[in-house]
């Protein structure tokens, strides 16, 4: 367990030092949410109706940008090989790195979401729910994204391919994330149902994604 935490701490320290990666993800999130009203027109009640959807889609895209960073740097400078020879199995290494990515990227994105909600005239009572669902949903985003990152390790145009591979897998998270937020605003469905399913999705991905990642890493470490 000590090694697990030391790996998480190191990754957090690295993402803190390379501030750029988080910065780009936040910047992208801000820009995508900001340009949509420019495209769709300033009609406030239209914006407030689509606000949860826009905030979630933009969050997924922003997280996707930073997901390939999980393995790429360590793969490039040979650290991944040395980590693999450590006491932790590949699954634990992946879990530690995804946890670090969630803390360093998922949480900042979640905290900026309500601020961007103001731009989209989000309903007042939806703010708390938005942050809650995103806090629960972003781990799944990091873990499932890591599968794509592990699969496209070492490929030239890996980033583009990564989004094609991972976005279809994000659809359930998107659907239940948005439906639980809009359930509070207006939606017909109940909040608890979609929210519990979202929690289930996150827990499932935290448990299962490392298995797929480890298999992909074993392949790419050859």
């Amino acid at each position, binding site marked *: 367990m000590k090694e697990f935490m030391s790996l998480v701490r190191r990754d957090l320290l690295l993402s803190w030092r390379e501030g750029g990666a988080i910065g780009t993800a936040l910047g992208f999130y801000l820009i995508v949410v900001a340009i949509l009203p420019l495209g769709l027109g300033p009609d406030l009640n239209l914006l407030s109706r689509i606000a949860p959807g826009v905030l979630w889609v933009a969050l997924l895209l922003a997280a996707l940008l930073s997901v390939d960073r999980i393995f790429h740097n360590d793969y490039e400078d040979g650290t991944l090989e040395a980590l693999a020879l450590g006491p932790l199995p590949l699954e634990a290494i992946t879990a530690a790195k995804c946890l670090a990515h969630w803390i360093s990227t998922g949480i900042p994105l979640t905290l900026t979401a309500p601020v961007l909600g103001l731009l989209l005239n989000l309903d007042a009572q939806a703010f708390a729910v938005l942050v809650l669902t995103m806090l629960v949903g972003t781990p799944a985003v990091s873990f499932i994204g890591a*599968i794509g990152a592990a*699969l*496209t390790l070492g*490929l030239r*145009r*890996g980033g583009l*391919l990564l989004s*094609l*591979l991972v*976005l*279809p*897998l994000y*659809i*359930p998270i998107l*659907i*239940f994330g948005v*439906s639980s937020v809009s359930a509070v605003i207006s*939606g*017909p*469905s109940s909040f608890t149902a*979609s929210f519990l*399913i979202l929690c289930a*999705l996150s827990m499932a991905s935290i448990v*299962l994604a490392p298995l*797929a990642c480890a*298999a*992909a890493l074993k*392949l*790419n470490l*050859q």
Partner: protein
Amino acid sequence: MQKYANPTRFMKIADAVLPWLTTATVILFVAGLYLTSVAPPDYEQGHTVKIMFIHVPSAWLAMMCYTIIAASSVGSLIWRHPLADVSAKTAVPIGVAFTFLALVTGSLWGKPMWGTYWVWDARLTSVLVLFFLYLGLMALWQAIEDPSRAGRSAAILAIVGFVNVPIIKFSVDWWSTLHQPASVVKMSGPAIHSSILIPLLVMAAAFTCLFFVLHLRAMQNEILRRRVMAMRLLQVERAANVEAGAPAE
């Protein structure tokens, strides 16, 4: 691990089976097309129900093909079966074609039924997502040069995708019930009367046989392609020996 005998044995078996399968496909198609042409019109949609005779089999094939890819991926990852790679790789483009047909015929059927080409109906949307999964697989196959690494990476993605298909189907169904505007008639299947069911089943059988003919043939091509590649490798190696002055055997 039957290393060598396997591909050659497969080629022989495929050569033996293919003629029979092709004749079966032709017969089924002729029977199917005849039956569809004489099928009575549906009381509700009239003759547009004839589109169903090719839409449903295509959608069914799209699902079946993904299942075959997932099964081959398990075979290639866990049992390292040499032909599983080949089967998974060759099934992807065929799957893409059938999914594309399911989407096109679905929307062409939607126009007369609902007045618009694309309706975010749960089934059509799930098939669209399946189409994205296929594109992901195809892209991954082409992105990695080394065949053995590509095979196993694509196998991992196929299995991860296959696990997600029911989850996506469930969430899309949930999503479509949430956004179900009362006005649009849900794509209710027409009453499956035997006069319509029989042509549908015959066409489905014809499509399935055609799939296996194409898949077996494509697998043979892939095996030949890998032999050509290996022999070119041999040529390069022998040329290198000649240059390096080693006695060219």
